[in-house]
């Protein structure tokens, strides 16, 4: 008997990919859990994670913010659950946990900017003007790390977007930074070195993170995604396209390994949804994901992961055709509300200023 004979259509490329029109692909199968409106949902990761955060807020879900200020949105309050900025690498996430719980005190306490401002090496662009003094920075960090602890301990769901394999770390104590020293503060010298993480390093780091997170929050569920945004730049001595291929492949393998090993970890294929349509979901720079691309990802996210929630009629959501709605070809529409996308805070953009 042909072992493939009894498999569903989704197991066959011809039936579930080649036969579909553009924008119809929904590769999500069974999901191990769903999110309900009362779930406290925290997000972190690369800049693509901010799309998820904004969408959850828009849909009225309980996007969990633990670090408040009067002006939400100002100086990144409310953009992230706590003001940790973008977390590009798994090691950075693990070290955020360790720093929040007093397990790791990095040698790099602060960096200076050329304008004399102090910056936090672990979130160098979190405040436009940096900090006026070291005392101000340390006070803010103490409050911030308290908010990080609250997020880890009280969230019901933690959504993490794997962004990069390339990073910069301290040669002294291994501290990993979101940006290379010299980009938004600090000075690049022999105290720092470039590191391109391997799959096993990322899996080990994330497993450590899971163990630690569960020890403070035993019932937490985790959703992993891989950012579909290509690398802005590579420090490897090779073409950025090759580095990008390695990075996405390694992140995807890490996500697969982790979700297979843990029932409470689910991989959501935002990377596949965006890249399955060639460059159609990218702007002309072939890097920025279009609004339609983001909306498509989020509509599939809603459909499968959000329990008892209809898709908001007020949203212009590009739904896959198999849901009974006409897919709208992005080429026939000019990009609307592009400024909304431009609000996404991507530290990587600073690399282009070098």
């Amino acid at each position, binding site marked *: 008997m042909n072992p493939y004979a009894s498999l569903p259509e989704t197991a066959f490329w011809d039936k579930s990919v080649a036969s579909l029109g553009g924008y119809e692909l929904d590769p999500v199968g069974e999901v191990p859990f769903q999110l309900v409106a009362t779930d406290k949902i925290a997000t972190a990761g690369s800049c693509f994670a901010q799309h998820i955060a904004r969408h959850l807020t828009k849909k009225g879900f309980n996007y969990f913010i633990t670090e408040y200020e009067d002006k939400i949105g100002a100086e990144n309050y409310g953009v992230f659950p706590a003001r940790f900025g973008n977390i590009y690498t798994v090691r950075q996430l693990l070290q955020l946990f360790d720093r929040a*719980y*007093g*397990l790791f005190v990095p040698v790099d306490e602060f960096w200076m900017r050329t304008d004399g401002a102090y910056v936090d090496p672990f979130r160098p662009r979190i405040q436009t003007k940096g900090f006026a003094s070291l005392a101000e920075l340390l006070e803010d960090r103490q409050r911030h790390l308290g908010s990080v602890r609250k997020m880890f*301990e009280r969230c019901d769901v933690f959504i993490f977007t794997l962004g990069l394999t390339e990073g910069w770390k301290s040669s002294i104590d291994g501290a990993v930074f979101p940006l290379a020293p010299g980009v938004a503060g600090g000075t690049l010298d022999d105290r720092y070195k470039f590191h391109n993480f391997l799959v096993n390093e990322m899996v080990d780091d994330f497993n450590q993170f899971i163990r630690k997170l569960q*020890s*403070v929050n035993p019932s937490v569920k985790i959703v992993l995604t891989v950012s579909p945004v290509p690398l802005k730049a590579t420090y490897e001595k090779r073409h950025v396209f090759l580095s990008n291929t390695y990075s996405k492949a390694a992140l995807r393998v890490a996500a697969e390994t982790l979700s297979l090993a843990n029932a409470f970890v689910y991989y959501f294929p935002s990377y596949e949804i965006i890249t399955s349509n060639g460059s159609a979901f990218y702007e002309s720079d072939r890097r920025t994901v279009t609004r339609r691309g983001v909306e498509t990802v989020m509509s599939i996210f809603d459909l499968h992961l959000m329990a008892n929630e209809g898709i908001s009629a007020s949203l212009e959501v590009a739904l896959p055709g198999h849901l009974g709605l006409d897919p709208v070809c992005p080429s026939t529409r000019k990009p609307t509300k592009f400024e909304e996308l431009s609000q996404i805070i991507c530290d990587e953009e600073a690399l282009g200023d070098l």
Partner: protein
Amino acid sequence: MKIGVIGNCQALLLINHINALSPGHDVTLVSMYRSSDEAALAALSDSLFGFDIILTQNLTDSSWGPLRTKTLSSKGLKLDIYPTVHFTGFQPDAVHVSTRLGLRTPFGPWQSSLVMAAFLRGLSRKRALALFNAYIYSQLGFFDEYAASVEYHGRVARNLGFEMNFNAWKEEGIFTSVPHHPKPWVMKDIALQCLAKCRIPVTDADAMPVDMMIGTPVWPVYTEICERIGVYDDMIFKGRWQKDAELQSFDLDEMISISYDAYDGRSLPSELSQISHAVQVIEAAVG
């Protein structure tokens, strides 16, 4: 009735409640805290033949000498054993350290296992402070301690024919100020059960005598532990009351500073299981 009550500080609390609930009996404390030399303890032991009822904790430590429960029982004395409260569910970090070590703090014999371990590991006060969090508590087993304490005390008490009404006690609030010191409503419950077992009628069931533990150290229930077991507390450590002085209260930062000052240059009981466990946890966590 002539009632002898043997035990640690809880014996005194029990007597206080028995006297309030059923006044008119001759209730006497029989404790090594009053007479600690062997001859005096032997005399106390012999005097027990003159009592109608002997209430005792199950005393096994050699320091109790002839007052050890097994020894008394072997002499043919009829003993009614009441449960000892050493409930670590609320204050799992508070460790009882002998005062003979000369650690002078306002908290009497009570020390933080976490602070002592941080000191022994050579961590700064600032780093010790940063370790007071949910992750370290989980590694130390603090979050499991309440359930474990309930299970252990409940089982031991049931074997003695007592019921530890933890849920009802918790409804009243945090029912220990340190692991050895139960709140009055706990001791009243135990006293009522002792009287019932001895068939002594209660004449004033509403009686609640003054808390004799007022002025003794109070260890707070840490915030993250409160959240998990459903109680509320501040993070204020209260020191032992001293004559003509106000009650001393300290926040976590101050408690750490006081402890570090007291530990400096002293020999610390690193062999105590709570302390050695905390040292191991900190080593594993921070390297």
